[in-house]
């Protein structure tokens, strides 16, 4: 885990353990291939450790700022010796490159996308693709704007990443109907589920439709899909370490036999 905070970077003494950097997960395949999930502010430090790299694959779930704000500060992006493949949600109106160019262009940023030396963009439709033997399943999930979740499979093991997700929205009889629940196919029987954990139940009641999960919905979804282990992710910027510790104690009490892993920077999970 390189960045586990949601919405906006939130550094400070009260968020030091659960971290202030926004969404970034570093994935290493069995063969050592580097696959990065989202380009939040957590990607910057990862880029400084990438010496000797020749290839990076970056999977972007959606283009909200907390998932792309670290992109121009990712050093390999500016290194002609490193090929960076950027995979993100397709649109019928503009290409991924054109949409990212809104951010990577003056006046918001001095460097344009076209000036990056060795970047290849892939407009991803729901479906499967392969990255060096890792099977990637992408599908739309319930969150404002076109937003993907990803399922990475290798050697019979599955990691599912859905950082921004409101599974209860639109779901009939949630969390009891797999057919009518967003994200189910992506997450079914996955070994590790990294999932949106943004709101308390009280907060959710005031923010229905904002695209995020309550803790109760998070657990309901994880049990519905049969996840092996659950990593909490996309913590609300207003939630302090103390609050999140309390939340995780509650999640563990309610989780039956499923292991709950607090999403913190530096956390490593072997799938």
């Amino acid at each position, binding site marked *: 885990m390189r960045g586990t905070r949601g919405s906006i970077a939130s550094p400070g003494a009260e968020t030091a353990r659960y971290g202030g950097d926004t969404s970034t997960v570093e994935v290493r395949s069995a063969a050592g291939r580097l696959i990065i999930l989202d380009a939040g502010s957590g990607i910057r430090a990862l880029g400084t450790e990438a010496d000797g790299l020749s290839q990076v694959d970056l999977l972007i779930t959606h283009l909200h700022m907390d998932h792309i704000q670290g992109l121009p500060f990712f050093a390999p992006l500016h290194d002609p010796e490193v090929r960076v493949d950027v995979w993100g*949600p*397709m*649109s*019928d109106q503009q290409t991924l490159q054109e949409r990212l160019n809104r951010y990577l262009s003056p006046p918001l940023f001095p460097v344009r996308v076209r000036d990056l030396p060795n970047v290849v963009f892939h407009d991803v*439709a*729901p479906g499967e693709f392969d990255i060096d033997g890792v099977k990637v399943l992408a*599908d*739309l*999930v*319930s969150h404002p704007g*076109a937003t993907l979740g990803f399922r990475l499979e290798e050697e019979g093991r599955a990691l599912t990443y859905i950082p921004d997700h409101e599974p209860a*929205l*639109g*779901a*009939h009889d949630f969390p009891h109907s*797999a*057919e*009518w*629940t*967003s994200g*189910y*196919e992506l997450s079914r029987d996955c070994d590790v589920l990294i999932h949106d954990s943004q709101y308390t139940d009280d907060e959710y009641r005031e923010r229905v439709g904002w695209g995020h999960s309550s803790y109760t919905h998070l657990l309901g979804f994880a049990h519905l899909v049969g996840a092996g282990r659950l990593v909490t992710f996309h913590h609300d910027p207003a939630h302090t370490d103390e609050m999140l510790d309390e939340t995780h104690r509650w999640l563990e009490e309610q989780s039956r036999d499923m292991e709950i892993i607090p999403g913190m920077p530096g956390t490593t999970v072997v799938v």
Partner: protein
Amino acid sequence: MPQQPLEMILLRQLSSYLAIPMWMMDEMGNLIYYNESAEGLLGIEFDDAGPIRTEDLVGKWQVTELDGTPLAEVDFPVVTALSKHRPAHRAVRFQGIDGVWRAVEVTAIPIEGQGGKFHGILATFWEVES
């Protein structure tokens, strides 16, 4: 059952809140959802009958022109939208499972996601004076 596409999940959510009778069919023509307002027109309740497979729909309903003359199946807006993936509208007489004939205006639209992915159709039924 496999998961429905997100577009259909969100569409069902919207339909369930509307007072306009609505049907949702998947790309194969299976009737996967109809809202409470549509139950009166169909003569069945979703909670009792659930989804209806396309082969089981045959003979469930009769549709004619408003004056009672036969209507070719392909001219029924639901069938048009399903087969041609374009919106269609028509005023027809419709007989539900309860045997009652009603005059309705039917509008059916294809549900197409990004990249032109066809997921099915949404149809509305507006009862009018016959």
